[in-house]
């Protein structure tokens, strides 16, 4: 009797032990500060995106080496480093010497957090997020793919212009980093010859905080806290003194202001229409083509997602007409039937690999969306190639401009052709992915992915085949999932590639890649 009791105790405690052994799951990309492959000393001359001059933001001339002011700053830095807590030292490791990647990660996490579709009211109507009252359900924003693409574009463009200016001043003032000025200061990262005034980290911290606070107003305190922690880490890492940080903050704040000024007039505020406007768009397609898309949810959502996102001001394509694709095959046509039959075949016999692909690229509600997925790829490549902060910013800026342009172009086509989804055209059709609340043609996944792949292929030519394969897989995933016809995916890929080539052409003007 007693021995059974002990047996039970032993077994119970081993079950608890097993529990304690569950490994910690990664909540961020595991990378540390690294030695930059190239410091890009001429980046101050690179072409700005939304600014006209690399001295558009004025910063004071820094205190000279040997000056009492700088010596005071160095002494202060040493004091802070000596007094750093273990939490502060962890924070230095977290932010690294390429902190843009961390801010991009924060942006993706917030995009995911806010990517929830409004639930119906008890009376069957649907509420909408209200930017004037962001904390009232449904919370503002609903960070759907177009929203996220735009958020990332403004974030990356502000960061990029800010770093171009920072690089310009770094090589103008040529002030050495604290760990080079004072042998008692050690850098937490790899040492290099990058000048420290102004702090590129501070440019990133402040520009990111400002853009993300505008995009996710309810996260204001959280973002302020993260920026404070980041700014503090710059001194503790031995790479900046306070005048570096203060000058960086000036640039960060100004570039964010320019970016947000553009954002406030880019047409996004009108992208989500009322029902009357939405119906007129639908009726225009009905008259023009004889078909129309309609939401199939219960209760039916009266307005699709962002019907006028196609009217938002693009970055690098001249206008949406320049990249608008031709019409899809009419429902019931032989070409349509062929692709509809294919969907039924997949639904009946999906292989494990096809199911995996559908789910891997799902990137639907409660995720960072396809734009976020490609930002993740870019982040991993950036670290693999040990790119400098300014080179990193360049890639993210051109990629995210292309991705947002792809969204604009895709949404133009979606609401121009207003093409019904498979669950609308094929009676009784069931899917393994949720059908989004917007027309089918062309596939957003395909367009976003092909545009991103085009830009990444330009910056990382040795990996071009991989990027294109991923884009094709993303496109196919929607067919496997039953929510797109093959023609949505294939034409979307062409469209995205075409859109992406405009950003590549613009990047080529620098002649530096």
């Amino acid at each position: 009797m007693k021995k059974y009791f002990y047996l039970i105790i032993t077994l119970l405690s081993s079950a608890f032990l097993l529990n304690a052994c569950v490994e910690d799951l990664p909540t961020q990309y595991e990378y540390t500060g690294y030695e930059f492959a190239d410091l890009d000393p001429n980046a101050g001359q690179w072409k700005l995106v939304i600014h006209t001059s690399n001295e558009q933001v004025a910063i004071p001339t820094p205190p000279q080496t040997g000056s009492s002011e700088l010596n005071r700053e160095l002494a202060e830095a040493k004091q802070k480093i000596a007094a750093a807590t273990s939490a502060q030292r962890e924070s230095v490791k977290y932010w690294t010497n390429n902190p843009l990647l961390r801010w991009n990660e924060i942006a993706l996490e917030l995009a995911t957090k806010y990517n929830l579709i409004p639930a119906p009211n008890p009376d069957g109507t649907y509420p909408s997020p209200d930017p004037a009252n962001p904390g009232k359900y449904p919370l503002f924003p609903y960070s759907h793919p177009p929203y996220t693409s735009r958020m990332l574009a403004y974030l990356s463009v502000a960061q990029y212009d800010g770093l171009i200016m920072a690089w310009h001043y770094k090589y103008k003032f040529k002030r050495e980093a604290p760990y080079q000025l004072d042998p008692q200061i050690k850098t937490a990262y790899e040492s290099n010859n990058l000048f420290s005034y102004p702090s590129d980290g501070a440019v990133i911290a402040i520009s990111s905080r400002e853009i993300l606070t505008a995009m996710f107003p309810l996260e204001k305190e959280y973002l302020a806290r993260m920026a404070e922690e980041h700014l503090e880490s710059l001194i503790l890492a031995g790479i900046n003194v306070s005048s570096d940080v203060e000058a960086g903050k000036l640039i960060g704040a100004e570039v964010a202001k320019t970016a947000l000024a553009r954002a406030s007039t880019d047409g996004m505020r009108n992208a989500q229409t009322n029902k009357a406007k939405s119906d007129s768009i639908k009726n225009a397609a009905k008259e023009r083509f004889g078909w129309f898309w309609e939401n199939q949810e219960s209760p039916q959502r009266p307005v699709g997602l962002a019907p006028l996102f196609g009217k938002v001001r693009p970055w690098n394509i001249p206008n949406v007409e320049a990249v608008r694709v031709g019409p899809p095959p009419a429902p019931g046509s032989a070409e349509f039937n062929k692709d509809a039959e294919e969907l039924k075949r997949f639904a009946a016999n999906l292989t494990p690999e096809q199911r995996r692909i559908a789910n891997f690229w799902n990137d639907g509600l409660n995720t960072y969306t396809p734009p976020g997925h490609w930002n993740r790829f870019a982040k991993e490549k950036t670290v693999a190639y040990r790119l400098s902060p300014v080179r990193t910013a360049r890639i993210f800026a051109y990629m995210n401009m292309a991705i947002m342009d792809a969204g604009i172009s895709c949404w133009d086509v979606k609401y121009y052709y207003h093409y019904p989804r498979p669950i609308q055209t094929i009676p009784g059709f069931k899917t393994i992915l949720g059908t989004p609340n917007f027309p089918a043609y062309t596939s957003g996944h395909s367009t976003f992915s092909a545009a991103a792949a085009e830009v990444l292929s330009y910056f990382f030519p040795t990996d071009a085949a991989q990027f294109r394969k991923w884009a094709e897989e993303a496109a196919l995933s929607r067919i496997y999932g039953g929510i797109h016809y093959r023609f949505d995916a294939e034409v979307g890929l062409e469209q995205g590639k075409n859109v992406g080539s405009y950003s590549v052409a613009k990047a080529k003007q620098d002649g530096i890649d």
Partner: protein
Amino acid sequence: MNFKSRILGLLCASLGIATISLAQTPTDGLMMPKGEICIAVVYENSSWGRYWEGTYSRENANIGTFTRQMLMPMVVGGITDKINFIVSLPYVKTAATGGQMAGVEGIQDLGLSLKAQVVDKALGKGKLMGFTNLSFSTPASNYLSDYMPFSLGFGANELGLRAIGQYELDKGPYLRASFAYLHRGTTEAERDFYYNDGAYYTSTMDVPDAIHGQLALGSWFLNKKLRVEASLTTFRCANGDDIRVYNMPQPTNKVDFDRIEGFAQYYFTGGRGFGVIAYYNHMFSGRNMGQFSGFGLGMTYQFKAF
């Protein structure tokens, strides 16, 4: 073998069966004697029209009524008079009446369990019995757990340790209590990024551990041919996140429920041979799951194997 335990042993051990993709949970107070084997097949049909998003109960017309059917073959056998094994392998099918999401069907989890009687003593006008049960279950097909609510199960290994105590009057009535700790491992999603109160950059999802408790009041009738029982079950995950507003559930969720059940088992011959079981249960509170009500019907056949 004394007379009492032979009588008990001749009765096909009943099968406490939990819904919601839990592996079978042998919670009863019966044992099979050495060499006796019982084969059972149970059909269960449970459904819900409302589900708990966190603790908020809502309907969703894009699911309508959700139904989960299960066909579960099961074998229970006596290794010795005091140690039994239980093996089960359910086939599960899910579907919804609303919306366009496809249901799934397939083999769920293989359940293996050992049950030992550790207390058996006369007490007053009845006897006190104690059992312990070590169970293990593991996904038996490549079903996708990250497809809730349709997924066949939670897709992780589960190690359970249960203690069961029963006091039974010689006249037939009995009271039983059981408590189990269920340690669950991780499950693999097919995406490598998800949100669980924050971003996760992995396809591995942690399925929360849980406790399972049951209180049952029952009685034997018709010279031990019929057993009728009412029970209250409570299930609590140790941690986990809530379903976000109007979002899909996922295996990391904190799943809780409380359920009442009525159960009956009838042995045609009062021993070896055929028997039937039937039960009905209803969840009256919960968190992050459908508010299931369902019934089960089963046939049992018992024989002396060695």
